[in-house]
């Protein structure tokens, strides 16, 4: 660690500094390797193409870290396979997830921004009450109400029925985006930093609150819009619990990709330890676009995270 360097003599200072830098590099490289191992391993497993002596394919978790042979068989199998009676299930799951993610992204971002703007820049009765209530509701474990949301959606036919199994996707979008507005704290922290004088002067010029929001706040809020959009877009790709409960185990055609992948390992019906390399291939396909998005939007992500930290 950096503390090793204790500049006591001026002469040895630069030498000490170099040593301490060297130590820091070493530690960081080791840490990076530790942090990357699981990800590298999943990628390696995805390209693993090993056969037993009798010619059967090994799709299980194997104990050698580096595969003996590489190939694209896992990807080919993944795209052609029939899971739970659904032919070519994987591309369908990806498409389902994409549709859900886009709609959820639009609705959630809109809700979050509108609430955050109100809480930050408008003065009205019950403002503080609204903030307190939303905080208290947020303290209930989400899993508790999950099953209730399922009953609710089921009573209005949005968990998919025999005639319209695709309705379950509408239900899932609602479940993801409906509560989004209550998670306004980070965006509010961002809006709080925008000077009030800007709003006041616009008001003096006769701007309505709507105009202020559209013409002044929204253009300034680009980082937080991108942050919120990123968060709500990636949500459906990462969640496997809510989707599983709401779409249901039998409705495999309309699963999201994470449910499908999860069921590949743990599902009761088709799960097979021999699916592991296919699972890994699916993971790589899901992870690549998300990681790329994160890398491109890194700046905004960091900004959002920092805003959340300071405001709590």
């Amino acid at each position, binding site marked *: 660690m950096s503390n090793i360097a204790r500049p006591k003599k001026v002469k040895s200072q630069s030498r000490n500094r170099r040593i301490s830098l060297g130590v820091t590099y070493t530690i960081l490289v080791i840490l*990076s390797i530790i942090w990357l191992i*699981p990800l590298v391993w999943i990628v390696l497993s995805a390209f693993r193409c090993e056969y037993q002596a009798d010619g059967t394919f090994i799709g299980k978790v194997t104990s050698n870290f580096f595969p003996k042979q590489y190939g694209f068989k896992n990807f080919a199998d993944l795209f052609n396979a029939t899971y739970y009676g659904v032919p070519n299930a994987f591309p369908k799951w990806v498409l389902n997830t994409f549709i859900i993610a886009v709609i959820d992204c639009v609705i959630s971002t809109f809700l979050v921004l509108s609430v955050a703007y109100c809480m930050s820049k408008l003065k009205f009765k019950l403002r503080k009450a609204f903030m307190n209530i939303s905080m208290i509701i947020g303290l209930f474990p989400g899993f508790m109400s999950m099953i209730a949301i399922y009953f609710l959606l089921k*009573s209005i036919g949005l968990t998919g029925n025999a005639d319209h199994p695709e309705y379950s996707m509408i239900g899932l979008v609602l479940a993801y985006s409906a509560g989004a507005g209550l998670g306004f704290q980070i965006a509010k922290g961002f809006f709080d930093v925008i000077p009030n004088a800007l709003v006041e002067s616009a008001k003096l010029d006769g701007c309505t609150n709507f105009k202020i929001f559209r013409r002044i706040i929204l253009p300034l809020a680009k980082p937080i819009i991108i942050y919120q959009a990123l968060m709500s877009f990636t949500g459906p790709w990462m969640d496997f619990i809510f989707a599983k409960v709401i779409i249901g185990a039998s409705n495999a055609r309309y699963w999201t990709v994470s449910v499908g992948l999860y069921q590949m390992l743990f599902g009761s019906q088709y799960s097979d330890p021999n699916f592991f390399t296919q699972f890994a291939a699916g993971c790589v396909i899901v992870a690549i676009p998300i990681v790329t998005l994160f890398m491109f939007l890194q700046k905004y992500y960091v900004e959002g995270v920092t805003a959340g930290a300071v405001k709590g």
Partner: protein
Amino acid sequence: MANKDPINKRRVGICVLLSFVTLGIYAFYWLYLLVKNVRSLKNDTRSCIGEMLCLILVPIYPIYWWYTRGNDVKRLLEERDCQASSTGSLFLVLLLLSSFIPLVIFIPMGIMQGDFNSLPTAVSKSHKANFFSPIGKFFRNIGKMFTGGSVGTKLSYFIFGAGNIYHKQYIKGGIFLLLQIAIILFMVLCPSINGTPYGYKALANLSLKNLSKGGEFDPATGGMTTGSDCKLMILFGFVTIAVIVIFVILWYKNIQSSYKADMDKKIGKKPTTFKEDLQSLLDQKFHITMLTPTCIAALVFTVLPTIFMIALAFTTYNDPDMNDAGTTLFHWNGVQNFARVFTGEGSLGFEIKNRFLPVLGWTFIWAIFATLTCYFGGIILALLINKKGLKGKKIFRTIFIMTIAVPQFISLLAVRNILGEFGPVNKMLMDFGWTNHAIGFLGLNPADSEILAKVMVIVVNMWVGIPYTMLMTTGILMNIPADLYEAGRVDGASTTKMFFKITLPYVIFITTPYLISSFVGNINSFNTIYLLTGGGPTHTGYQAGGTDLLVTWLYKVTIDQGAYNTGAVIGIFTFLITATITLITYRRSKAYNEEDTFQ
């Protein structure tokens, strides 16, 4: 000594009487006043709703409260040269007595109120708004608007929109009228889904002691429809209550709208046209436009489900211990589900009681360790990456962000398999000859070590959490004023000393709110446990495994076992814990109390 909040004086007899008349509701308000009085005696102007909630919701807290506050009141009164009858020990005894005879609680309340009444403060009553003042205002306004309003306004008390139509605001009045008709029809006609009705029948169903006797009367058989479903009855009952609340709000708004038109007329202004009303929704009332979608969505998909699950905690829904077990037929059973956690009554109750305290303890240990390891690990990592003269900062940061970006179900399942029975780690250990059989790091088999699994989840959680804290602290580290270090260097402080005296205190000061929210987040941390260990080792049926947290247990109990009532009980306990922590710390924090100053 200027008292901003004067002491509320009340006649004890009247307070007790009102408490009886209002079936105890007034007692809560009275208690609230007492809490407030103690606060103002201490010159503490912070809002006391948090304390009030703790007093009502947290089990042991009242004992502590009455004891310490009794002594406080005695001391503070004697400082003001008053005779005090309150003492902590007296209250303690009375409180214990009141747990057998609830009515005794009025005695300490009365004694305390009597002490407050004896105070000679002659400060005029302040008009500072409190939590209850909107309710009072609501009732005052109803009276005021009836006596002061025009014929139209008076008519609005019975027919929605009458006042608006009277003032020629036809569209607005029409909308109010239509809403009134729609809601009344909804209440009277009781539309039903799957044989379960809404409307007044839903209310009637909700009030049944034995829910399974509800449903709709079926003339063909002379009994109730067989399709009645108790969970829908509860759900629809609450929807109906929500509709009634909306009805009352609409009623009030319709009167208010008409009264406002009266007032406009009085001062010679024309009542607003419908177009003007719409325009004001984009300006003065813009918050209504902006908040309505969220309010509706959150009400339906967050508040309603939460209330519904809380209600289920008081039923026998799908409970193997109750004789009417089933997913469609069940009944209310009071607080038995809560009591069962402590008494262990019945076969399920026995299992729940056995595991509750261990799981609770582990949840706390987990939350403390997970929070602290990730927090300090993240700070150290950020310091390393931001070291002066280090090249490739961006590359290192990107590597760690990448681990955040990869969905947890991928990375954690990868870790699970790497550490698993057939994974590379065990192979390596065996090749080195350090072990001759696969080690169950994650407790996936019932025979595996529980301690090892617990340590491993905390360690693996560092992998998950450290990059996140690192990102956050990076931003904060860059904002530390450089002159602080300059001053430190001039004084000859070493790098180590500067880290402990400048960097660490600064970062901790800024991130305290985050520390609290991440502690609460870790109590509810589902993914890490569920994906890594699945709660193992040893988990069968309702029995929580060695690494199960309250939330993962809740998930197993509800989704896997279908014991929704028990799951809801666990959920409510989890809420009480997180709410207590958050309310106590958050309401004391600067970020909350000076929330407005940030703007």
